[in-house]
């Protein structure tokens, strides 16, 4: 099949970008969306033109590197998959497809479809961990965790940190991402020791990085390729409230 692509091209963060038209010929339904872009790029390169820059790595939906807004939806039209797992059988001959980067103030464009998502790492550095050093851990079975709680933790821990939630949110909020980190630890006894500092510091860092707040649009849940439920946001706010009323005052993480 043949598709008409409208792709965001932007030389770098300092230069304005624009949509550019391309034709994707000989597209097979078995191709992944990124393989379709590979073919377009190989065509550009063989003419000496610069290929379209886009982030990708594992191409099996787990590294979180791919970050395309396809026809206005982060990761494209299918629910529960990343752009790299989207296959061309989801499109038909003659379709016009627009491809844009994940847009948010906190995700500045580096080039074309590639954005800088370093702000998400900064949020994790503010408290997305348990402060144990290597060595001296008790036997794994010394900390029993009920299957239900372990499963709830794992549901949240499945977050791949792609940032689709941010791209989809009208406020560019990262609350689904932050909620997933907080919820993962909330359901584990190991995580409860630092629950107050974690909730406060991570949410404060999210604000500091320029992400918006959550106003319950639930667009994040709709596009999340790992189908992280919005309950993690509720849990994160509950942890935050608990830290505000019940928790002892805690200093912010030292830089």
């Amino acid at each position: 099949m043949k598709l008409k692509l409208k792709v965001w091209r932007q030389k770098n963060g300092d230069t304005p970008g624009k949509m550019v038209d391309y034709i994707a010929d000989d597209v097979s339904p078995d191709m992944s969306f990124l393989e379709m872009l590979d073919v377009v790029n190989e065509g550009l390169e063989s003419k000496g033109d610069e290929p379209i820059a886009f982030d990708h790595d594992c191409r099996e939906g787990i590294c979180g590197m791919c970050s395309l807004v396809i026809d206005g939806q982060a990761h494209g039209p299918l629910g529960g998959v990343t752009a790299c797992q989207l296959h061309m059988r989801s499109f038909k001959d003659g379709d016009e497809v627009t491809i844009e980067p994940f847009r948010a103030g906190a995700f500045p464009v580096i080039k074309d479809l590639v954005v800088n998502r370093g702000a998400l790492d900064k949020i994790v550095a503010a408290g997305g961990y348990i402060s144990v050093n290597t060595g001296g851990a008790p036997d794994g079975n010394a900390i029993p965790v009920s299957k239900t709680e372990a499963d709830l933790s794992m549901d949240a821990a499945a977050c791949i940190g792609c940032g689709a939630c941010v791209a989809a949110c009208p406020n560019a909020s990262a609350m689904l991402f932050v909620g997933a980190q907080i919820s993962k630890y909330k359901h584990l006894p190991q995580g409860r020791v630092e629950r107050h500092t974690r909730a406060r510091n991570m949410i404060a860092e999210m604000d500091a990085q320029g992400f918006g707040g959550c106003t319950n649009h639930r667009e994040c849940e709709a596009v999340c390729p790992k189908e992280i439920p919005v309950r993690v946001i509720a849990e994160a706010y509950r942890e935050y409230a608990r830290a505000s009323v019940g928790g002892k005052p805690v200093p912010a993480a030292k830089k």
Partner: protein
Amino acid sequence: MKLDSKIPSGPIEKKWDNHRFEVKLVNPANKRKFRVIVVGSGLAGASAAATLSELGYVVDCFAFQDSPRRAHSIAAQGGINAAKNYQNDGDSIYRLFYDTVKGGDFRSREANVYRLAQVSVNIIDQCVAQGVPFAREYGGTLANRSFGGAQVSRTFYARGQTGQQLLLGAYSALEKQIAKGAVRMHSRHEMLELVTVDGHARGIVTRDLTNGKIEPWAADAVILATGGYSPVFFLSTNATGCNVTATWRAYKKGAAFANPCYTQIHPTCIPVQGDHQSKLTLMSESLRNDGRIWVPKKAGDTRPPNQIPPDERDYYLERKYPSFGNLSPRDISSRAAKQVCDEGRGVGPTGQGVYLDFADAIKRLGEGVVRDRYGNLFQMYEQITGENPYQVPMRIFPAPHYTMGGLWVDYNLMSTIPGLHVLGEANFSDHGANRLGASALMQGLADGYFVIPYTIGHYLASAKQPAVTTDHPEFKRATEAVTSKINRLLSVKGKRTITSFHRELGRLLWDKCGMARNEKGLKEALARIPELRNEFWENVSVTGENEELNQALERAGRVADFLEFGELLVQDALEREESCGGHFREEYQTEDGEAVRNDEKFAHVAAWEYQGPDKAPIRHKEELEFENVHLATRSYK
């Protein structure tokens, strides 16, 4: 070059304890005076960077992805082995050690493997403490499952995303240290050169992938944890960015490259669908716990699978290897799949596939249980193939997945360049000629959390090298070499795309040096690779410029290195005149197609020493001694 493995003396179960006592220590107050560079942020790199900085060393960590969490360890699905014996089914450190040495077809170093089995139990404890949400039993204890090449259940897992969860554990530890300022993280930085001063590894040169800035970094020791080289085959289960560049540049600076021909072809991947394909997707080996592998008995049988009655199916793994059946090790399962496809009994549109059938498991356990165990894998399969594996059997075929070969390291994980340490898949040490399932995660974390923190201290305390900065002429020289190579790539301005070279190299290696190899094919590959390499440097089209994000340039540099490395891989395969593990030479097999090792001539590690651009490398040997696990023909029958 002299290969000194530095294996400690004493009985095998005491070696690591003795060694830990004998190694020199760095005083806590002095640790902050040492800077360590860690290249790579996967399981091995992130765990090493976090742990070393916890100890007090000053750490710089580099990753080519945009975040340390995206390293390819994240894609490991099935699980991590540990000799916990929580299942009371007869496991022990010695059994894990024995299984790993045997599984590696007696081509690994006993002392390293024993240490790996010993620290495996600490890894689980550490990961639980970090909050890794491992699968649990209803009583709250940790759950296990079984994996290929073992008859006990020792694999810990987190659904089908064990690698992700373990990496997020290591990444969270790393972020904790980054927040403290103890680790400086450099994302989107690719290492392009190793810098040695007076024979010691003292730094690296990187390219900032966002703006092309070439920068030197100095340190007291360098750790490479840069993963494997499967994408030399173009199509593999690895991420598209995985590459040999860091280890290859170290090789060209004097680090011996060991056993490059030991490549693992994973038996359960989704078959190739067309020429456009950019990667192959693994279906976790854990599926073989419940799935049954079969092909039609008759060649050329094109009936849909559900119309082939049971007595016309050949469950060939169960037939040939009754005691391990569908859980036979990877090398054996892959070769068996190739055999039935060569006999014309392969399935699917290309005939390059076998069935992995869950019908019996669904009947026995119910669809709910199967969904609970493998739901995400089934979903991934359906996404890629458009077929529903709950209703029709999966089609699978082997694909390049892991590379046991890598830079040679001694017991301290130090390469032949003093100060250059190599961890995880990037080194050669623990898996011999074939890696068992769920052992890669174990090795990456063992190296990073529990081995290098001891052994690097010994190096730093005894090396006593003068302080250097990036003003040293060696840094200037290395920076210039990197710049001139980049300029050379950009100035070819040829007609052929980078990917077409990569694809041609990959196909050549897969055909001549893949699941089965022979002298004639290997010699053909050896003749073709230099031609292809010359054509690359005369006719490759690398667009854009250096001073920007330039993915074409990144790829070109990696493919240029694969075009050199591929030759060494083939040469190593040619010299090893035996079949062992992932290295199967057609000349050396039994009548029924089983591998025939030659222990008299080849019970050694082949470590290659670079001699210069147009000179043949020298093949050194490290003889392997088996004092505990006696050399025997490996049988899973």
